[in-house]
């Protein structure tokens, strides 16, 4: 049985900007850390006051044999609490529970070219990909979209790989996405990580230009908020209220319901749950269009409900 839980100790914290911190983790027990390949993320359990959050963070460097995982965490406003905890309360030496790395955003070795597109802090898994792909000698091009005041910061983060094929663009209109996607050679794979609107735009544009399905890859840590609703548990009885700023999965966990989960981003399929009544609002990338339309399943980690009540087979 592969060990899934790991105790991490905070080895270093570096402030990159008022809202961005680089966190370096090592094993708290001295056991070697498993390899975290480019694109992998770890889930950390964060105790924020009386709430327990499990947040996923991408590794920003491939961790083969370094014994360390590096993350960058953005302080968001409004926050579900996790980023405020990391920014305001986490100290060097603190021990955090978490999972071993999982990779739902890998690169594809048979690609002729890798096109990386990042938005804001979505750059994190792309930093790891850029390092790994450059080391392999693969053909790679990176475009980072940033707010005007953060262009210098991201340029500095990308400085080790500076070149014509690594560019930081200020503002939403800084990059002509259609021109970029139109000039890619056959065999290109595109990887996008950032706000959902950016990922939707890249995916929509690529599909419209005729890119086939398997060539478009997106990281899937989505926003979880929305209209509040109630979950009724058909098997165990009881009801759980899902607030506007928490995910269905978090609400279930906080209520003590043993709900399976892994990526917490709607990608892996681990939290698949049968819906008995009510209309799910699907936000995952796991279910097929037909499964979503059937209304029989829901991924509680990211999805919500169109109806006031959702009855789950839990």
């Amino acid at each position, binding site marked *: 049985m592969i060990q899934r839980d790991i105790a991490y100790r905070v080895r270093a914290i570096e402030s990159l900007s008022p809202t961005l911190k680089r966190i370096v983790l090592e094993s708290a027990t001295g056991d070697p850390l498993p390899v975290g390949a480019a694109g992998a993320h770890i889930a950390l359990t964060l105790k924020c006051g009386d709430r327990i959050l499990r947040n996923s963070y991408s590794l920003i460097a491939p961790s083969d044999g370094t014994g360390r995982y590096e993350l960058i965490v953005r302080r968001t406003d409004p926050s579900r609490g996790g980023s405020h905890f990391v920014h305001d309360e986490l100290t060097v030496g603190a021990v955090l529970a978490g999972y071993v790395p999982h990779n739902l955003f890998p690169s594809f070795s048979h690609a002729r070219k890798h096109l990386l597109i990042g938005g804001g802090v979505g750059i994190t898994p792309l930093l790891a990909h850029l390092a790994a792909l450059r080391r392999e000698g693969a053909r790679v091009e990176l475009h980072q979209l940033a707010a005007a005041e953060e262009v210098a910061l991201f340029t500095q983060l990308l400085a080790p790989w500076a070149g014509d094929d690594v560019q930081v663009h200020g503002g939403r209109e800084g990059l002509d996405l259609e021109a970029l996607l*139109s000039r890619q*050679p*056959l*065999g*290109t794979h595109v990887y996008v990580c950032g706000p959902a609107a950016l990922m939707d735009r890249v995916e929509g544009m690529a599909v419209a*230009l*005729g*890119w086939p399905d398997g060539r478009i890859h997106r990281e899937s840590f989505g926003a979880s908020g929305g209209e509040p609703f109630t979950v009724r548990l058909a098997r165990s009885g009881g009801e759980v209220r899902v607030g506007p700023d928490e995910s269905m999965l978090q609400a279930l966990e906080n209520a003590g319901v043993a709900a399976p989960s892994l990526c917490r981003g709607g990608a892996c399929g681990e939290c698949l749950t049968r819906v008995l009544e009510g209309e799910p609002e699907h936000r995952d990338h796991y279910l097929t269009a037909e499964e979503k339309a059937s209304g029989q399943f829901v991924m509680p980690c990211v999805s919500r409900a169109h109806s006031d009540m959702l009855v789950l087979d839990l």
Partner: protein
Amino acid sequence: MIEGHSRAIPSPLPEETVHGFRSASHLLIALRRRLAQEHMGFRLYAAGTEGFLWDVAGACEAAGMGKAEYRLCHSGSAQRRIFCVHCRTMTDGVTTNLVTCSGCGAQLFVRDHFSRRLNAFMGFQIDAEVPGETIPVEELYR
């Protein structure tokens, strides 16, 4: 479009979007050069005999395209290209269940086992296990 012989030079077809070629080999050389310049979103559709189709598919894969990006449609003869598993020689234009290998001269049984990599059907010596034991020759792949 394969026109054959010297009719293709210069292109006998008036439209610039239709190019004539002397042979499939001639077309495939131009195709590989063209695919190296193409961009994502490109689609290719090929029609022809099986050997030609899989040569085209090979050029597409070599250029980085995936199965979703090219379509193949068989038309014309069903004759087979046979790969001799003993001497590795290809024998083209086979229409019968048994064929003499153009390399080692063995009487090959034409199997339905097709290799996309080699673009050929497998052929093995019909009497490899019991010398002299064979079957009647039939024309099956016209």
